[in-house]
Structure formats: structure tokens, C-alpha cells
């Protein structure tokens, strides 16, 4: 659901990958040494088996510490990954169909004008401290937390339409009514918003201390949710331990109270290479496989007793885009971009040639070890329902690309190997990307080579993330950038990127009126899409939007990496999906008898 620039974590890749390759090829040698030097490790002794599904534990790793346990203030995944086990929303997204389903609300009604939504809450739900859950908590979460003017949060921005909040009222203890200012299609999915306990947080709000409540220094006992697990221990830099919430409301189809697993442990392991070693050693049960790990891990499946699941294309896209901002600096009056560069970048032929020149197969081979998918649609296949394949797909074809450029007047007039435009300006420009994300750096390097094959001169530079952001959002002085966005299911949440007035409409942000007809049409489609409640009718709008983006190429997409997860064969009920990954049904997963 969250759309965010994928900021990379630390990555030691190239060298450490090499180390691993060298070392692992010589495993026999190493094991020999180790056998002589040390006693081989003892196998963990099998505990007594209990003939039922309850108990046991699952150990996961994460690269960084959570920043807060306060779900409203949480800004990034290292925190939300933790809070997602503790808190529930009124609705949830089905990981198989990506449709919205009842969760804390057992059902709902909508008025014929689509503005008044009444939610009927599940009976008998309790917070993990035993206190009953009621409509008061829902009203509190919206009126006192999300709409509280003193609490800045992205939830407030999502649930405010044209400056107007929703009206949230309690009808009775188990019924809540939402009144919307206008029709808002993403509303139901948005109701996946975590509900927080009034009885625990009321005082913090009254004291105006909510922003600093439930930080990482909080006693885990205080953090109370309705989710399947509760936090029992947090050792900074080391581990998070969750225990089963004994009050959890959900039952299995057989009528057994969920969740089954007694404990879930997150180990904080900053280095992905060490995560891999720990997975192979057996201390971690789940490992997110990088493309470079696959050729090594796959053959070990049987011997080491795990399974690598291919979850399909990742949500995160990588793309190149060009500065089409025709504005000038408000104080100095200097244009953000020289006129001739602006002319190239706003020329559709130029962008089409680039789209044809990018060798996506090569990127997949080199960057993803062959495990990736070319991307052409602006809503990736991971989004399920709203994704369409019916867009213009640009095959890698240098000849066509060169011809498009030549026909549009870009030719090598002085035989120096570099193209010039009709006025004689050399096609030379800067290409930026952010340092620190090795995958993106590799992609940018390949694109650079591809464009140079086309006869352009590229000055490639990787910038610190913050530097790049200030170029994109405040100084606007840049030519071309390779960047990524993590996608989500709900297309409307990409509005800030696609609407011409959006601050993240990166190729030409903050437009007062749409600069081009196609940008105007995309604006219209987003307005139509957000006010149409029928999913099927919405899809028509977003299909057209994807078609326009593929024709006009404001962002030129590259490839999506394959998501792969390796899981130890200790668990039953694993149902991995593209949207939900391996853990979307964590509460239903239990340990095999022999694994306990």
C-alpha cells in the first residue's frame, strides 16, 4: 500500500558476492579443515513432540532496527513490519485475489450515493491485554490520532480529500459510521489502517505527548494491539520477540483459535551475507533470496531441507526519466534547463528511441542473474487486478532507435561519433542515480552504455540520496535520473506521482495547469478513477492511464526483479503469494511435529 522511493539499505554486494563464490566453490576444502580443527556441531536435540498444532517458533531476520512501535508515526518498513503483527485494521487485502475483505469489521453497508459507510464490528474482539475492543477505539484512532492537528502522519494525508476529513461517528458499541466529503474509491482498502487502543493512548493524547509515545524505549507490555502477536521483548540491535496473543479473535476453518505458532522472533542482522550464512546454519527459518544467491541456494534445497519459493515480480520498479520542466528559477529567472536540452527531452521521438535502446534482457542477465521481468506497464504485475499488459512494449532494437533519432533530426553531423540536434548541439547530458543501491547503480550503468551505443554522450554520476532529492524537488537542475518507486495495489495512491500538480510528478512537478494534453488526460483519469466505486469500471480508467504512460514515456521502465524467498521445511500451511509474500497468513502457519 505504501508507495515510496525505495531507499537502499547497506549493501556490500560485489565484493562479498565474490567472496562467497570463491569460498563456496571450495566447500569441501573448508569442511575438511573444519573437521580436523573442531568438533562438528551437534544437531539440535529433538524436543518432545506435542500432538497438536500449537507452539513452536519462527525465526525471521531483518536488516535494521524498528524506529518506533507507534504505528501512526511509523514512516518506513523496518517499523511497519513490526507493527503489522501487533495491529489490525477494519478491512484487509486478500493476498490471493488482492480484493478487500472483512477483518475487525465483519461487514459493512454503503449508502446509495457512496458517501456514508457503516461498519459492523466483530463481537468479542479483545486487545492483547484483555480489554474489550469497541467502536470507541475506531473513533479515537481517526478523530483523536489521525485527524489530530498536532500529530503529523501520512495517514492524515491519505484520509483527507481536498482538505476535508472524513466524519467518523460511533453509532453503538459495535457500529461505526464514516461520512465522506466526496466519493473515494480507495476508501475500503484504506480501512486496513491499524486501529489503536483508546484505553492505552488517551492520556498521551491529552498530554500532547502522542508523537513521542510508544518509541523504541517503551516497555513492550504497554504496546497493545488486536493483532495475532504481541511484542514481549526488544533488544536494540539484536532481536525482537513476539508471543502469541491469547485473545486473538480469528479462528481456523476447523474452529481452532489462531495463531498456532507460540513465538515469532526477528533477529536483526544488518548484513545480507550473514543472513544467508545464518539461514544455512539453521538459526533463521526464512531468507529473502537475492538474484545472486539463487544459483548457489537452489541446488542445496534437498540437502539442507528448505524450499525456494518464486513469488513472481517484485513491486518495486526501476526507471529512467528526463527533465521536462520548462520553468525558471523564481528569483534569478534562469531556466532550470537549457532550451536545447528541454527540446530533446520533451521530444517524444527522443524518449521513444531511448525506450528502444534499453536492453532489458541484458539488465536481467547481469543485474538479476536471469531472474527478472521486463516492465512496460506503469502499474506493475504485482498489483494484480489493476495491472494491464495492453500497453506499448518497446523491444530492444538499436536499429529502430537510431532510425527514430535520425528521422527526428538527430544526426552525427561532424562525424565525431556523437549525435547532434538540428541546431548543432551535441547530445550530451548528465545521468544521475542515488549511491548506495547497487542494483540501481548496475542498471544505470547498463542504460548509460546503451545510450552511448545510440550515439549520445552521457556523464554518469551517482549522488547521495539527499542530494538527488533536493535536485528533484527544489533546485530542479538535472537532466536525466534513474530511480525506483515501490508500488502498491491501489493506483490512486500514486496520484502524487501522476497528477500534473503532484510534487512527485518528477519530470515536471507542481504544474498549475497540465503542460500537455496527455498529462491533462491522466489528471482526468485519476479524478474519474477515485470517484468510481465499481472496481471493474475503475480498471478501464487505469488501463487507459497505463496505455498513455507507455505511449508518452514520462518514465521509461526497465525491469522488475523476481521475488524469491527460501523457507526451511519446518512449517505447514505456507501459501506464498505475490502480494502477500510468505508470511501473509502467519497466524495459520504451524510447525511440523518432527520439527519441534
Amino acid at each position, binding site marked *: 500500500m505504501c508507495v*515510496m*522511493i525505495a531507499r537502499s539499505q547497506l549493501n556490500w554486494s560485489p565484493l562479498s558476492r565474490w567472496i562467497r563464490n570463491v569460498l563456496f566453490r571450495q566447500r569441501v576444502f573448508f569442511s575438511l579443515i573444519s573437521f580436523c580443527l573442531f568438533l562438528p556441531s551437534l544437531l539440535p536435540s529433538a524436543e518432545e513432540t506435542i500432538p497438536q498444532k500449537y507452539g513452536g517458533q519462527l525465526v525471521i531476520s531483518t536488516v535494521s532496527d524498528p524506529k518506533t512501535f507507534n504505528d501512526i508515526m511509523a514512516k518506513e518498513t523496518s517499523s511497519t513490519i513490526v507493527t503489522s503483527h501487533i495491529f489490525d485494521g477494519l478491512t484487509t487485502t486478500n493476498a490471493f485475489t488482492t480484493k478487500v475483505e472483512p477483518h475487525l469489521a465483519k461487514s459493512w453497508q454503503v449508502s446509495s450515493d457512496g458517501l456514508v459507510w457503516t461498519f459492523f464490528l466483530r463481537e468479542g474482539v479483545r486487545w492483547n491485554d484483555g480489554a474489550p475492543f469497541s467502536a470507541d477505539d475506531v473513533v479515537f484512532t481517526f478523530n483523536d490520532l489521525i485527524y489530530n492537528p498536532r500529530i503529523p502522519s501520512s495517514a492524515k494525508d491519505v484520509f483527507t480529500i481536498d482538505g476535508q476529513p472524513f466524519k467518523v461517528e460511533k453509532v453503538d458499541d459495535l457500529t461505526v459510521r464514516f461520512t465522506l466529503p466526496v466519493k473515494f474509491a480507495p476508501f475500503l482498502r484504506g480501512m486496513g489502517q491499524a486501529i489503536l487502543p483508546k484505553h492505552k493512548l488517551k492520556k498521551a493524547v491529552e498530554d500532547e505527548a502522542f508523537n513521542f509515545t510508544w*518509541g523504541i524505549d517503551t516497555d513492550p507490555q504497554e504496546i497493545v494491539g488486536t493483532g495475532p502477536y504481541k511484542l514481549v521483548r526488544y533488544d536494540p540491535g539484536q532481536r525482537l520477540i513476539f508471543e502469541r496473543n491469547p485473545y486473538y479473535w480469528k479462528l481456523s476453518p476447523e474452529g481452532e483459535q489462531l495463531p498456532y505458532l507460540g513465538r515469532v522472533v526477528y533477529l536483526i*542482522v*544488518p548484513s545480507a*551475507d550473514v543472513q544467508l550464512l545464518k539461514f544455512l546454519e539453521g538459526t533463521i527459518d526464512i531468507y529473502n533470496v537475492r538474484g545472486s544467491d539463487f544459483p548457489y541456494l537452489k541446488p542445496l534445497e534437498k540437502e539442507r531441507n528448505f524450499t525456494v519459493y518464486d513469488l513472481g515480480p517484485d513491486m518495486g520498479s526501476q526507471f529512467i526519466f528526463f527533465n521536462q520542466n520548462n520553468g525558471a528559477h523564481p528569483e534569478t529567472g534562469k531556466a532550470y534547463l537549457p532550451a536545447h536540452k528541454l527540446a530533446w527531452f520533451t521530444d517524444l521521438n527522443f524518449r521513444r528511441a531511448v525506450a528502444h535502446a534499453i536492453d532489458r534482457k541484458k539488465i536481467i542477465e547481469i543485474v538479476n542473474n536471469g531472474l527478472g521481468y521486463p516492465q512496460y506497464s506503469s502499474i506493475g504485475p504485482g498489483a494484480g487486478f489493476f495491472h494491464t499488459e495492453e500497453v506499448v512494449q518497446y523491444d530492444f532494437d538499436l536499429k529502430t532507435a537510431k532510425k527514430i533519432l535520425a528521422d527526428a533530426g538527430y544526426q552525427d553531423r561532424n562525424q565525431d561519433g556523437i549525435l547532434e540536434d538540428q541546431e548543432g548541439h551535441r547530445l550530451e547530458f548528465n545521468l544521475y542515480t542515488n549511491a548506495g543501491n547497487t542494483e540501481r547503480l548496475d542498471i544505470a550503468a547498463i542504460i548509460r552504455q546503451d545510450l552511448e551505443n545510440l550515439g549520445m554522450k552521457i556523464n554518469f554520476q551517482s549522488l547521495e540520496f539527499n542530494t538527488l532529492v*533536493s535536485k528533484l524537488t527544489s533546485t530542479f537542475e538535472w537532466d536525466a535520473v534513474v530511480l525506483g518507486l515501490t508500488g502498491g495495489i491501489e493506483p490512486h495512491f500514486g496520484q502524487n506521482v501522476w497528477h500534473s500538480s503532484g*510534487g512527485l510528478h518528477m519530470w515536471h512537478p507542481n504544474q498549475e495547469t497540465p503542460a500537455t494534453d496527455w498529462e491533462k488526460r491522466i489528471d482526468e483519469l485519476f479524478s474519474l478513477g477515485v470517484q468510481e466505486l465499481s472496481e471493474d469500471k475503475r480498471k478501464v480508467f487505469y488501463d487507459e492511464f497505463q496505455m498513455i504512460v507507455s505511449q508518452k514515456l514520462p518514465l521509461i521502465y526497465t525491469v522488475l526483479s523476481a521475488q524469491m524467498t527460501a523457507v526451511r521445511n519446518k512449517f505447514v500451511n505456507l501459501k506464498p503469494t505475490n502480494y502477500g509474500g510468505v508470511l501473509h497468513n502467519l497466524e495459520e502457519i504451524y510447525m511440523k511435529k518432527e520439527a519441534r
Partner: protein
Amino acid sequence: MWGYILKRFLVAIPILLAIAFVTFLLMRFTPGNYLDTMRMDPQYSKATIQHYEELYQLDKPLLQQYLQWIKNILRLEFGYSFYYNVPVVQIIGGRLWNTFVLSCASFLFTWGVALPLGITAALRRNQWLDRLIQFFSYVWLSVPSFFLAMILLYAASQTGFLPLGGMVSPNFEEMNFLEKALDILKHLAIPTIALSVGSIAALQRIMRGNMLEVLGQQYILMARAKGLPENKVVYHHALRNAINPLITLLGYEFSSLLSGAALIEIICGWPGLGALMLTAVRSKDIYLVMASMLMGSVLFIIGNLLADILLAKADPRIRYERG
């Protein structure tokens, strides 16, 4: 002596203020600020980002922000981290201790191994033992510590002899005191060795060089001629003189205790300051960076002072009384 120490502390105050100011300027004048990640997140509106700017006082003039920070420091309030929304001290506290434990272990290990090695090598100059030590020193000097850490971790994963990163075992809580100590020592082994091997090689060579120089002096010849036992010549006369330059070095080493281990900490999953500070600098979490910078500086000053005092103790020619 006490007067001298007091004077040194007084001099330290303006130095610390200057360091703090320069850090502050660096953090503010490099492009971007903490809110940039939010600016690139489609779910945040401009109003919310402005709200955050006010909350974190990023909209105030630079000098005002700095003075406010200094004022808070004097009251021992190090401010709130933007990222975590909790006081900086809360975040750093435990991690500072962990880094300190690791650094001390590596410090003791380095000096404990390097000095005897250096002395042995000097006394057996050009014999096979010396050559062997020098050969391995060259090898270890050229191996990057993080590479070594990876290799050690790999070896550990194959043998199961040592734990793979982290600081304590999962069942740490159930152990008695002795087991706990042993558990931490086991977890310390790999990061300590990885951190130390390079410095051992370097320090050993310095020690050997100093020792050789002193052993060639006339007074050593004199001592030997006088018929003093070799033990006394080496350990009483030569060593005391040879070790002086190393004491100065020790002061510097002390200051790098908190900063030198970041890379190894990240690889070995040691819950110290390393990864925390790296993200703090990159995400421009100013007060978190400032607090750790300040602590590093204090250690640096204390380290230098300690070295000077130790030097005075070791070398009777140095006196600070009148200084």
C-alpha cells in the same frame, strides 16, 4: 599535576564547542535534510512536511538552532532523534556500551599480542622467528578487516564452533553469570580478531623498530658491559625507552575506540553504534549525529590527556608541574 589536568579540561571546552559547530554546519550545509525521504513519499502532503519542519525546528535560522542546541547540552539534554522520536540518549546509551566492550576487547587483544610479538621479533632480529612474524605481518596488513570477518564467519558457519554474529545467544536470559560471560566472550571472538589483526601487524612492527633502535644505543652497550643480566637490560632499560612513542599512539587509539568498529559491527551484527550512526548521518538525523560526535570528541580529548599523563609516569624527563 592536578593543575595541569584542570587546565587541559578548560582548554577542551572551546575545542568541543568548535567541533560541535563545525559538525552542525556540515550537517546543515550538505544538501538536503531529514525530511527528504518524506518529500519523496507520495503519501505525505506538503502541509504535513511543513508540520514536521516546525516540530523539528528545521525552519528556524541556523544560528538560533545551534544556540538552542548548546543551551540544551548545558542542561545535559541531547535532544530528540528525528528518526526515532525518543531522546537521543535513550538510543545511544546501550549501544555505546556495546561498542565500548568490543573496542576494549580489541584494544586489549591488539596491545596484548603486538607488544610481546614486537619485542620477541626485535630480540631475535633476522632469525627465522622474526622473519616468520614479519611475513605474517605483511599478509595481515594487506587483508581488509571486513574481508577477514566474512571469512571467519564463513568458517564459523561450517564448523559451528563460534556463533555467527550477534552479541548473545537466544537463551542468554536463562544462563547463570559465568555462562553469560562465556557467551559474550564467544560472540566477541570473531569481531575482535577481525578488528585486531591489522593493528597487531602494524603495532608489532612499530614496537620492533623502536626496540631495535634502543638496543643499538650506547647505554645498552654500557649496561651489558657493566654485566647486568640480559633480562634487566631488555625489560628495565630498553623497554622503558622503546615504549614511549607507543604511549602517544595509545592516546589516539583510545579516541578511535568508538568510531573504528562500524564496518565490523555491521557485518558481525554487533549491536553497537556503527550501523546506527551510519543511517543517522545518511538520513541527516542531526541531533543523533551531534551527540555521538560530541562523545567521540570527549573521548579523543580524554585519550590525549591520558597519553600525556602516562608519558610523564613512564618517562622521568617529562614533567608538567611548571607547564
